[in-house]
């Protein structure tokens, strides 16, 4: 009746993909990518989460409204994270007279 019935093979395939991605994220963590470790780990986690949402939670086969709600959740989470970080990342920036506004490297004549 309502709700899409996916074949078992889809579920097993997604399960395998998730396990592989988990293995990858653990392996990559031991490789020193400097400041890229964090984005890579986050990217893998987002991929895994998307797989679970689309296939295990049937978002892919449900109404556009459900997809809109999923998008809204992550959009407002992004607002919370990014707008707050605009404060913390720009705290170091000094606005000295003569200092380049926003550069944070204003030279203060002693």
């Amino acid at each position, binding site marked *: 009746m309502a709700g899409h019935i996916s074949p078992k093979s889809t579920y097993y395939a997604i399960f395998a993909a998730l396990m592989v991605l988990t293995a990858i994220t653990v392996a990559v*963590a031991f490789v020193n990518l400097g400041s890229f470790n964090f984005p890579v780990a986050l990217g893998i986690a987002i991929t895994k989460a998307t797989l679970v949402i689309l296939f295990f939670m049937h978002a892919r086969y449900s109404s556009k409204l459900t997809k809109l709600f999923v998008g809204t959740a992550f959009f407002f989470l992004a607002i919370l994270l990014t707008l707050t970080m605009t404060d913390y990342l720009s705290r170091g920036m000094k606005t000295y007279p003569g200092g380049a506004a926003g550069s944070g490297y204003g030279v203060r004549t002693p």
Partner: protein
Amino acid sequence: MAEALTAHGDHGGPHAHHPDLQHHFDTLEQQHEAATLGMWLFLITEVLFFGGLFLAYMLYRVWYPVAWAEASRELDITLGAFNTAVLIGSSLTMAMGVRAAQTGKQRATVVWILLTMALGLVFLIVKYFEYKEKFEHHHVPGVNFMFEGPQAGPAQIYFSLYFLMTGLHATHMIIGFFIMAVIAWMAHKKRFTPEWYTPVEISGLYWHFVDIVWIFLFPLLYLVDRAGHFA
């Protein structure tokens, strides 16, 4: 939605419909869509509920990368990875359980749901050992927190967030465990039919969400800097 509707007598008149159709809905499909939509909305609130902690995590990771690296190395990565595998497995069994309910296989539904509960239990037991190990190493924030080296302060913040995030996640697991117990009991009583299996589906959505939270928690807490960039 607009098909002919039987006139309702006064409240509580004879229901000419499917026994599971509640009085204020017109069709089973409308009821099903309403239930799933309601569950997705609840999951939005959960995303933002955990979102607050992710904000604190992101801020302090940017402020104290060295402390985050040192404190993260205190966690046991094999247990973390094992737990991730267990939870992804439980997501699979949950999905298979929902599928069994959709196709009307009562016994299979019960078995898959019990499997999901078992995997959830394994996860919680592993978590218990991890917490016990933290207590022994005095890594529990509070008065008797001990962490050698100059990063003791930010490390205590890390462990505060560790316990808050994993504690909140474990609480959601325990709630999920009891929900699954109820669903398994209902399935055992053959309550679900291919037309009405909504409780299985929405508890499945909840379980998958709890799995997704762990999918993010594992790399953020366990894999901060295993390569020694900030060593």
